C-alpha cells in the first residue's frame, strides 16, 4: 500500500500518462469519472456500491467475467482489511488493476520486423479498420527506414484493393495486388516472390474482413496463414488481430477464434479516439494472454501508437489517487 500512490506522484509518471489522458479524455471522464464520484469520503460500503463499481467497469466493455472477478476480489479485500470507507477503495482498485495487467508482465510491443523478409498479417472482422491500420504501420516502418510493401489480400470487398493502393501512394511504399476475386493465398504467394526480387524488408498483408463464425472464410484464412509459413521461414512474424474499440463482448469470441486459426501475436485496438474504451482488449489480454500492441487514435497516418498498458492505467486512474 502506498506504493502506487507514490508512483503516481512522481513527475515522470504524470508526464508519461499525459498522452493517454489527452487521447482518452472522453473515456476517462465518462467512465472512470463515475468512480471518482462513487468513492467519496464517508460513503458506506454496501452491496449497492459494489454493483455500481461493477457497472463502471462493464460500461468500459471489460469482460463480464473479468469484472465479476475483480469485484469479488474487492469484496474479499474489504473483509480481510476491514475497510469501512469507500474512499479507501480507490487505492485497492488501482492496485488490483496493476496487479492484473501490469506487474510481472514484460510485454514487448515492438513489431518483429528484423528478419531478411518479415511478413505481418492483419486479420479481423469486417469494418474494424484493417486497411487503415496497414497504412499507418507502413508509415511507421518507412519512417524507420524499412522498405515496405503492402499486399492487397482483400480480393472480395468492392474497392478494397484500390483503397489500399491509394494508401500506398500516400505513404510512398511498394504495393502488390492481383485482380479482384483472386485466391488470396495465391496473392500472398506471388507477393512474397515479388518482395524477394525487389529486396523488400517488410510485407504488410491485408486480408478480407470475416466474421469468425463463417467456417469457410476461416478456412480460407488458415490457408493464407499456411502458405505464408511455407514460403517464408517462421512467417508470419506477426499476426495482428485488428479490433474496433467500440466492440463489446463479442471481441472475446473474435480473439478466441482468430487465435485458434492463425495464432495471434497481438491486438491492434482501433478507433480509440471516440468515446469507446476498448475494455474488451484488457479482457482478451487477461483471458487469452494476447497483448495489445498498437492503438489507433484517428484517421491520419501518424495516428498510431505503441500501446503501453502501464501508461494506459496511469491515464485512466490517476484521478483516483
Amino acid at each position: 500500500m502506498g506504493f502506487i500512490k507514490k508512483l503516481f506522484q512522481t513527475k515522470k509518471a504524470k508526464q508519461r500518462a499525459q498522452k493517454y489522458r489527452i487521447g482518452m479524455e472522453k473515456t476517462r471522464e465518462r467512465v472512470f469519472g463515475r468512480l471518482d464520484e462513487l468513492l467519496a469520503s464517508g460513503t458506506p460500503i454496501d452491496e449497492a456500491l459494489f454493483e455500481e463499481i461493477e457497472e463502471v467497469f462493464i460500461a468500459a466493455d471489460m469482460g463480464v467475467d473479468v469484472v465479476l472477478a475483480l469485484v469479488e476480489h474487492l469484496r474479499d479485500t474489504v473483509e480481510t482489511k476491514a475497510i469501512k470507507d469507500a474512499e479507501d477503495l480507490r487505492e485497492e482498485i488501482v492496485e488490483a488493476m496493476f496487479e492484473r495487467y501490469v506487474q510481472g508482465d514484460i510485454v514487448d510491443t515492438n513489431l518483429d520486423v528484423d528478419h531478411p523478409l518479415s511478413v505481418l498479417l492483419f486479420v479481423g472482422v469486417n469494418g474494424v479498420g484493417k486497411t487503415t491500420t496497414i497504412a499507418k504501420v507502413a508509415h511507421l516502418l518507412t519512417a524507420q527506414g524499412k522498405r515496405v510493401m503492402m499486399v492487397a489480400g482483400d480480393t472480395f470487398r468492392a474497392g478494397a484493393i484500390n483503397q489500399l493502393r491509394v494508401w500506398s501512394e500516400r505513404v510512398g511504399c511498394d504495393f502488390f495486388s492481383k485482380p479482384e476475386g483472386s485466391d488470396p493465398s495465391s496473392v500472398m504467394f506471388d507477393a512474397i516472390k515479388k518482395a524477394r526480387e525487389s529486396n523488400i524488408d517488410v510485407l504488410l498483408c491485408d486480408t478480407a474482413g470475416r466474421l469468425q463464425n463463417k467456417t469457410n472464410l476461416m478456412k480460407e484464412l488458415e490457408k493464407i496463414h499456411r502458405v505464408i509459413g511455407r514460403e517464408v521461414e517462421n512467417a508470419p512474424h506477426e499476426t495482428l488481430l485488428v479490433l474496433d474499440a467500440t466492440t463489446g463482448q463479442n471481441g472475446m469470441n473474435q480473439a478466441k477464434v482468430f487465435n485458434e486459426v492463425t495464432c495471434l501475436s497481438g491486438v491492434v485496438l482501433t478507433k480509440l479516439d471516440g468515446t469507446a474504451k476498448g475494455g474488451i482488449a484488457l479482457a482478451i489480454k487477461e483471458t487469452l494472454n494476447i497483448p495489445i500492441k498498437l492503438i489507433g487514435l484517428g484517421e491520419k497516418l501518424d495516428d498510431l501508437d505503441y500501446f503501453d498498458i502501464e501508461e494506459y492505467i496511469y491515464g485512466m486512474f490517476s484521478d483516483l489517487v
Partner: protein
Amino acid sequence: MAFDHLSDRLQMALRRMTGKARLTEKDIEEMMRDVRLSLLEADVNFAVVKKFTKAVKEKALDEKIIKGLNPSQQVVKIVRDELRDLLGGDTAEYAVKSDSLTTVMLTGLQGSGKTTTAGKLALYMRKKHAAKPLLVALDVYRPAAVEQLMTLGKQLDIPVFEKGTDVKPESIAKEALAYAKEHGHTFVIFDTAGRLHIDEAMMDELTRIKETLKPDEIFLVLDAMTGQDAVSVAEHFHGSLGVTGSIITKLDGDTRGGAALSLRHVTGVPIKFMGLGEKLDALDVFHPERMAGRILGMGDVMTLIDKVTDNVDEDDMMNMMEKMASGKFNYNDFLKQLKMIKRMGSLGGLMKLIPGMGKLTKNANIDDKQIVYIEAMIQSMTKQERKNPELLKRNSSRRRRIAQGSGRRVADVNRLIENLDQQMQSFKRMSKMDPNQIDPKNPMKNMPSQAPKQRKKGKGKNRGGFRF
C-alpha cells in the same frame, strides 16, 4: 463461460426453485441477478439492464398466477415479453412512396457497413417495391469509398451518382437530387462518410446535408457487435440529426446484439432493417420478437409451446405415441398427425421456433405442399389399406392405383410408405434414448435421422456458396 445463454441461466435458477408454489421476492431477485448478467454479456447497456430488471421484478411480484404455467415459467414469460416490447413490439414501417421520390440518408461510424447497406437497400427496394433506385456517393474522405459504391452499383445494375472527391458532399447531394428527378428515379440512397459521433465538424456536415435534402428517412447504421458505447453513439447521432430509424448490420455473426436493444430503448428510434451477410440480398426487415429470442439465447420456445398446447389434444397425442412405439401406427394416424401439424401453421415457421433448428431450415427443403400431396395419397387408399400398411408393401398394383388416384408418381407413394416406416423406427429409437445425452448445442446430433434423403442440388444459384 459456464452459462452462455440466459435460457441456461434461467433454467439453473428454475431448477433451484422447482416445487415452489410461490416465488418469494428473494427468489425473484435471485433470478434477476441471472437475467442481469446475461443481458450484460449480450452487450445490453448497463443502465438499460438496470431499468429492465426492475420492471420485470415489479411485474413478476404483481403477476396473477396464469393457469398452466408454474411461477418460474411465468417469470421467463415476463422477461421475454418485456424484451420484445423494449425492442419495439411490432415490426416498424419504413418510408417508401409509391407516387413520388423517396430519399434516404445513411449515417454511422466508420466501418459500420453503410456502403454495403446502401447497395443492399437499393436492391431491396427494387425487388420489393419495384422502385427505380439511385445510389449517391457522398463519402469523399475514405480512399476508394466512391469506387466501392460504383462497383456495387455495377454488380446490381443500379446507377451511381458521384462527383469524385473534390466536391463538397452537400453540393453533390443537391445535384444528385436534381438528377434523380430528371431521370425518373423513385428511391435515392445517400451514402455518407463514416464519422465519429464526437467529431463536431463532421457532424455539422451531416446536418448541412440533411438541410439540403430534407430526406424521408435518416438511418443510423450500427454494427451489431458494438458494446456499451452504442448508447453514446446513438444519442449523439439522434441528437444532432433526428434519426428516423436504424439498421443493425453484421447480425450473421455470433454476437448476441444487445446493442440493438440499448439503441432502441435510449433513443426510441425504431430498428427497421437488419444486415445478415455479405451477399447483397442479405438484408431483411427487423423483427423485434426474433431479436428478443436471440438476446435471450433461446429459440422462441414459448411460442412453440403456445402453439402446441393450443392445437394439440393431449389424449390424441398420447394415443399416437403409444401406437408408434408399439408399431401399430397406420395411415389414419398419419393423417391425423398431419392435420395437427397443419393447425399449427407452416412447417418452416415451426422449425424456426426450435432452438438450433434455425440453421437447419435454411438447408432443408421444408415444403408445406408436401403435406397436401401426402394427404391426397392417403385419401386415395382404401379403408383396408389405411388400417393395414402392410398391404401396400407387397402389392405394386395397389401402389400404382394410389399414385393415379392422387396424381402423384409411384415413387412418391413408395416414399410415403418408407416414411411411415422410418417414423415408427425412429420413434422407437427415440423412446429408448436418454434425454440427458442430447447435446444442447446441437440437439439434432444424436437424433435418428428421419428426413427423406435430400436430392443433391445441381448447378444452381446455391452452388459453391462460399461466402456463407
